[in-house]
């Protein structure tokens, strides 16, 4: 069981809670102890909007342990509108072809279970094609 390491990250995973550097005001995700932009310590929480665009993507058929049940799936580098890039799965694609530059939005989904029948279920961010343009 690896409960603590996932539990500790729940706010980041469920709601894209990262940081804003109090010194240079750059937005940071995933959180870091030292701001990569100015080198000072960054500790102020910041919740990202969840809006971004696809920077790169790929679809896997050979999934690692824990992910076999959902293969094939698409993983992308998503550039968040606040600046940082995150690695995340794309979901709800249907038959829609993915393209670099495609607008996406964050949703909270099941990432995987520690054990299909009995283990803790790990939830976290994924991104899907933007549902409506009017939000």
């Amino acid at each position, binding site marked *: 069981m690896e409960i603590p390491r996932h539990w500790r990250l729940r706010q980041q995973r*469920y709601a894209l809670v990262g940081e804003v550097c109090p010194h240079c005001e750059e937005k940071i995700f995933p959180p870091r102890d030292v701001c990569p932009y100015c080198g000072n310590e960054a500790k102020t929480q910041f*919740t990202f909007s969840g809006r971004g665009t696809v920077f790169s993507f790929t679809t896997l058929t050979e999934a690692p342990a824990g992910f076999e049940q959902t293969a094939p799936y698409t993983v992308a580098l998503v550039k968040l509108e606040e600046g940082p890039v995150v690695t995340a799965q794309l979901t*709800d694609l249907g038959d829609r072809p993915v393209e670099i530059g495609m607008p996406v939005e964050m949703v909270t989904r099941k990432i995987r279970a520690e054990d299909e029948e009995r283990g803790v*279920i790990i939830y976290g961010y994924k991104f899907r094609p933007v*549902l409506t343009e009017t939000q």
Partner: protein
Amino acid sequence: MTEISPQPAFAPLKPDRPVGIIGYGAYVPQYRLPASEVARIWKGGRAATPIKEKAVAGLDEDVATMAIEAARNALKRAGIPGDHLRAVWVGSESHPYAVKPTSTLVAEAIGAVPHVQAADWEFACKAGTEALVASMGLVGSGMARYAMAIGADTAQGRPGDELEFTAASGAAAYIVGPAEEALAVIEASFSYVTDTPDFWRRPEQKFPMHGQRFTGEPAYFKHIIAAAQHLMKATGMTAQDFRYAVFHQPNTKFPQRVAGMLGFTPEQIKPGLLSPVIGNTYAAAALIGLAATLDVAQPDDRILVVSFGSGAGSDAFILHVTEAITQRQNRAPTTQTYIARRVEIDYGTYVRFRGKLAS
């Protein structure tokens, strides 16, 4: 139809401080299983089907994820941050865990923790509306300014069972707050409950059992009609006083029939009758229907909502829409936006998505 009246002495539920809905949000997953697919596999393709198609949760979705999205939509419409909520209550019969609340996960995801009531509710298909009544109490008593009630399900049906045509997935969330902030004031509520075993699932069983035709007359119809009639009578209203009505919808026919029995026209139930295209979303069914109705409602409209939960009981509500509705309808995706997002799947994909493959 014989009229069944509870003791007239019982007044409708009405809090000391008037309350209303200040935000609402729906969620319907994008996958659709046409009922004809179930008929193709189990009935030689020749059965009359109770609905056109049903919404099915994807592999990475469950009650928690759907509840989170509905809750986020409700917060957007209410225009409040998650930490203003003093309760996050999730009603469902398909919580991801038998023990460990869905509500804490939802509350964490929407930023409502840690100073919050959180619990999961179970009363078959009316678990969500029961949470709504409790929210009225919490806010109406002055203990809380805002409380959230969610109904969500990824309903189960044994392969080949009648339920497999209709058992669907979806969620809806409501934030109850002071009437002066409401997009719809909850004028009164009334519940009608008896011990009626029309549908059940024993612990550690994957699929529910049901009483076939016993689920109709003595269960669905009796409880909805009793709750609705009593509430209308006690408030001095008739079907003509309402612009819209929403009833629990296990299929297409039942809500149509119960509406007719209560004197409602097909027009009145039209915006909220979603079961033909999304199926029976159980604890979410009446609440998603209400969300779709609120999406099109105008100020001063009155809406009657009556849920039904097996086992059995109904909660009835009278909503009075306010001026605030017009600015809030488009702050989050409408129910029809979700319904329009449609990816058809076949029975094989459905069986994989719902974890029905024998391993």
